[in-house]
């Protein structure tokens, strides 16, 4: 079973990494969802015991409740992060009218040049006044 869990986690994480490299911001978020899923699965798989659900009264072996509690926490936090990411993506869209990382990079480079130019102009003015 160990091997099966590891294989599944590997495939999930690999697919997530692939998606996270896309130009499309929405696919980047999807990739992160997959990576989070892989992490949750790993957590669950690392339980020391397997068996009945840990709800009283129990007879015989129960499955490890500690990893379940941890996975729950991880799930909820992962969810909060993804919600935040999605709203960030939307905010980026309203600001730049695009979801394309290449376009965004170009925009940022242009902005950086503008700032540089502005600073240079300011310096020139200051120097001219200094004289």
């Amino acid at each position: 079973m160990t091997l099966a869990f590891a294989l599944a986690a590997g495939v999930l994480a690999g697919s997530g990494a692939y998606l996270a490299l896309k130009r499309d911001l929405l696919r980047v978020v999807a990739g992160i969802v997959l990576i989070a899923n892989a992490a949750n699965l790993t957590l669950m798989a690392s339980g020391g015991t397997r068996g009945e659900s840990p709800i009283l009264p129990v007879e015989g072996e129960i499955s490890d409740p500690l990893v379940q509690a941890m996975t729950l926490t991880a799930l909820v936090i992962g969810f909060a992060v993804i919600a935040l990411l999605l709203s960030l993506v939307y905010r980026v869209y309203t600001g730049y009218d695009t979801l394309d990382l290449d376009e965004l990079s170009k925009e940022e480079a242009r902005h950086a040049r503008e700032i540089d130019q502005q600073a240079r102009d300011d310096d020139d003015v200051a120097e001219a006044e200094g004289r």
Partner: protein
Amino acid sequence: MRTWAPPATVLAMAGAGFVALLWLWLTGGGEVDVPWAPTLDLRLHLRLDGLAAMYALMATGVAVPVFVFAWRYLPHHLAQQGRSVREQPRFYALLGMFMVSMVGLALAQDLILLFLFWDLTAVASYLLIAYDRQDGGARRAALMALLVTAITAVALLIGTLLLYDRYATFSLPELFRVAESSTTVTVAGALIALAALAKSAQVPFHFWLGRAMVAPTPVSAYLHSAAMVAAGVLLIGRVYPLLELSPVLLDALVVAGFASMLVGGVLALSRDDLKQVLAYSTFSQYGYVVFLYGLGGESGVGAAAFYVVTHAVAKCALFLTAGAVTRATGAQRLSELGGLARAMPVVAAGSLACAATVASLPLTVGFFADELLFKAALERGWVFAAMALLIAVLTLAYMARFWTGLFLGAPRTEAGPVPGAMVAPVGVLGAICLVAGLVPAPFAAIAQDAATPSLLAAVPVEARYYLDLRAENLLALATFALGALVHAGHRAVPAAAEAVARLGERLGPERAYTAGLAALNGLSDRVHDLEVRDFRGRVTAIFLPSGVLFALAFVLTPTVGAYAVGSFSLGDLPLVLMLGFAACVAVAATRPRGHLTMVLTLGTVGFALAVVYALLGAPNVALVAVLVETIVALLFIGVLSLIPREVLRSQMRATRERRGTRFRDPAVGLVAGATVFVLVWGGLSRTGGEGDAARRLTELAPEAHADNVVTAILADLRALDTLGEITVVAVALLGVTKLLRRGRLW
């Protein structure tokens, strides 16, 4: 806020601090020694010994006239630049911070604590020099001061760590006890001395001090006389017992000090701007102090301490003079000024006393400073005495040029009225110089006390007039004669000095600084360009090599028994099938289909995993997973519905058209997946130890009044974690709301 409140507060702080420190010093000093971070050997160790008392008294004592002056100066300064008076509190807060960090620096007995205050003074001075922040020159000057002093401060830190590595202590008294002459101590001492020289603006770091003159006058006055620049020589005095162990370091100090005195003196002679003259004078004067520490011995160290006090008083007054003169006339160049003695008698008289002090004329306290200098130099030999004489002549010449240029000759400008609060400090400081010229005992006492921690022994510092023909007196007479001669030939001398200064500008270290800064800036620009041009390229650049490294590590570590296939029974078949299904759907999600398809595929992965959790005997997790997956899918769809269809379509096309990375992205995905697989497999193979944690938790559950063990863990046993989790969710929610509503919460 009332405009008098901020200056009054810092003024009261400075005054109260001065009185308290003075009282403490007179009653024998005090000490605070508390463990701060004992595991790291850090102590909050402050002690008011003689050296600390001298610098702390200077920092608070000089602050009083400076703050009084600033009170009247600042509103005018702000008005001239069209800035609001509401910017005043910031100025006083920064000056107050500067003062406090300087006092802390003086008191610190622990190298790490010292480093902390050291950097605090750098930060405060940065903000103060750039106080006129709309001025690009001021910003650049501040950055220069910060870079020069903060980068060299790293040398101080490295020296500290070297010493700690060898002697396992940061405490200075402790170090003095155990340190012996060795290469480590020499290297550490050299690094610490480097930081000190940069802070005191000694050659070749002198360029920042001249630039820093763009700061408002009270800042310049304070920076030069009692803070920042004084911090460098304070550090030398503080770690002197360590420096003393390596004669080569002391010789280096002599050279650096002499070079600084010479360069500073020549530059001071060549400058036209009032504050520039004073700036170069300052660093020449601190050159004296470094020179004296280098000469060493009882007389050298004692003289250094004496020099620092007299210089602080006199230089502060001279800066305030420059400020008052500029306020009265609007001019700040020597060539535009002259004959002000009649219009500003108090300032003229006060600054005469102070200029005479710097030039070491008799009847002022400065005379004794030069006597002590000559005595210390003579003890080392005639060569050193000749060096001292040369510098004393230069000092006399530029001080004479400064004062006569300002106050004698024909008036060239109209002098307006100057507020009394700007005149009085100059007068008071001048009077102190004169009174101390007659009764030097208090100055000598404080200098003597200040030399004690440097020498680890009490030495007498004698300041009195000897009316005989001893060598010191002869040297002083020679100084006066030669100085008068240089001043008389003042047409030729400044021209020659200026030629030297111009040469220095062309070849000097400032050029190296500017070139270095430009190169760094260019490099940063290029890296930034690369980064923003292709973000994914950068991610790949990190992912791929680290994946390869991980793979290598796994290949090289022994694998026997490290990986277990694990038990498998027929009952596990549904689990395996579900896992396989989830994996297949995850791969399908990477196909370039429409966004909605992708979202639904993602949801399928999540639900498949929920089934896996259910099969693993975790109904709680399965339930939450279903809930979370549903909401995530809905969120995705919500975002999709907000974004126009054309934009989404063009994204689809972009995904398909991509050529250059056809093989790169899958390769990265494969490496990442393989790495995770090997990592997880290795990790899971090691768990499954026996243990009865599950059993114990089950027994604890009823005590938490819960039937569900997982609930008991979340709400009781690990409640703090859950609180953290809830906080994360709340913060994320806040962020989402702000983002979606464009900054409004409701």
